């Protein structure tokens, strides 16, 4: 199988000098469900954001479907992004709009400025949006405002919006970090099933190692901007987990990270 996404030697230095990624490389094949684990601050969000160029890497190259994203023009970038769904920890829905309006936003990348600005979604898009909501069990909430939903429901709308893009790659940045265990299960089941059924590849960053092992077909462990584990969930030993979550010597925010470690070790 050819690789859908190839990340080569990617480095990211933020404007304030933080080196969030220090040379990350991996290839993602079609159909993989990769889970990224690592302490908070390890660079998971940075990596995911570089992939769809919400931020741009400082060095290295990211190739999606044979196109170098860093060389893409504005228009090409829209075409790349519309094929990459993204799900966020804080859902990032537009609170004042309805569920269906939020889901339809997933179509914007395929629409002209004019059609987008006047909400002229075609019939096929509208029908599809409704079908997706049914698949995640949200059809009853179609006309509710997004701010009236529970966290788990919001995230299922987030998944629906990404699905409306008809993506070939799904990025999820800690999709269940703000949810209780039950909703977490529901959301991860939805996400996992949909990706499996539609053959969508996924890169999901997670906080909980137990969830990672349950859903992942591949686990990537990041520590301090470097990949320290990349392989099958079966091979993820206790010591490998310790290695991924090990405190770095120059870690200044000790208190902040204490909790993460506890969460992670409690497999």
């Amino acid at each position, binding site marked *: 199988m050819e690789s859908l996404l190839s990340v080569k030697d990617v480095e990211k230095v933020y404007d304030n000098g933080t080196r969030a990624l220090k040379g990350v490389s991996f290839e993602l094949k079609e159909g993989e469900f990769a889970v990224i684990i690592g302490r908070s601050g390890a660079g998971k969000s940075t990596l995911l954001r570089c992939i*769809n160029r*919400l931020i741009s890497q400082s060095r290295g190259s990211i190739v999606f479907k044979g196109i170098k994203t860093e060389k893409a023009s504005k228009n090409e*970038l*829209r*075409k*790349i*992004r*519309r094929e*990459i*769904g*993204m799900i*966020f920890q*804080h*859902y*990032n*829905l*537009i*609170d*004042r*709009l309805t569920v269906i309006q939020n889901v339809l*936003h*997933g*179509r*914007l*990348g*395929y*629409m002209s*400025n004019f059609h*987008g*600005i006047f909400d002229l979604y075609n019939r096929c898009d509208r029908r599809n949006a409704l079908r997706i909501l049914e698949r995640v069990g949200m059809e009853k909430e179609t006309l509710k405002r997004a701010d009236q939903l529970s966290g788990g429901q919001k995230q299922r709308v987030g998944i629906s*919006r*990404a699905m409306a*893009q008809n993506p070939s790659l799904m990025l999820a940045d800690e999709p269940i970090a703000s949810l209780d265990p039950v909703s977490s299960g529901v959301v991860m089941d939805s996400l996992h099933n949909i990706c499996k059924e539609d053959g969508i590849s996924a890169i999901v960053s997670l906080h909980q190692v137990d969830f990672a092992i349950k859903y992942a077909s591949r686990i990537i462990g990041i520590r301090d901007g470097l990949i320290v584990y990349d392989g099958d969930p079966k091979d993820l030993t206790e010591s490998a987990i310790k290695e991924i979550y090990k405190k770095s010597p120059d870690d200044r925010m000790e208190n902040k990270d204490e909790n993460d470690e506890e969460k992670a070790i409690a497999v």
Partner: protein
Amino acid sequence: MQFTYIPLKKEKSLYTWTGVFLVLFTAIITGYVTQFDIREAVIVLPGILDFILVDFLPPALKAVPDFMTSLLDTLCMAIISTTTGAVISMFFALLCATPTTPNSIVKLVIRGFASCLRNIPGLAWAIIFVPAFGIGKTVGLLALTLGSLGSMIRFFTETIEEVDPGGIEAVRSVGGSYWQVLKSGVLPQCFPGIISWALYNLELNIRASTIIGMVGGGGIGFFIQFNIKLFRYEYATMAIIAVAVLVLLTESISKKIRERIM
């Protein structure tokens, strides 16, 4: 419990007395500096009361038909200037709010421009424009519009900057263009804030248009000024009451609208 209660009360009365002392002290000092004699005020007070009670009262009901068109003019001036001002301000605010600005130079230039505008009140614009356009509604409209721009640009900019960046990021991530991000990510989020500031500005403009009318901007302000000059104080009183009613009405309507659009 009593333990903590008693000292607290003592502290409170200490604050009160310090406050009273400070106010009196400042009053005496400033009175001394400006040579304002409180006794004089007390002496003329009955005269002022007499003037108000006898000359301004009772309000002349028969003036109502005379100023209805002027009152309507005032309302229209306030509405038109607010709407025009809001549209122009929105344009500038989008150009200079951090999430939507095309670049940081444009942002700085517009911020500077807006803060200059903010320091020139509508009244000043009216006084500047009267010689150019003559007394009338044109002056009122221009003065009110220019007078609202500065603060509306600022309020709108702040509203846009308070928008949740997550929503913007989401629309960017699906491949939305700049205009689509504006329309689908930014506008729905800042809509209630923008409308609410515009309504507030409308209330301000109704009040301001009365004063601007007095220096030559037309409308009910001009009517009031005109009648005071002719010593028809009861007419002026009636008009002032009408303005107060108009302001109250606008306030309650805009409050309703605000609640509806949250």
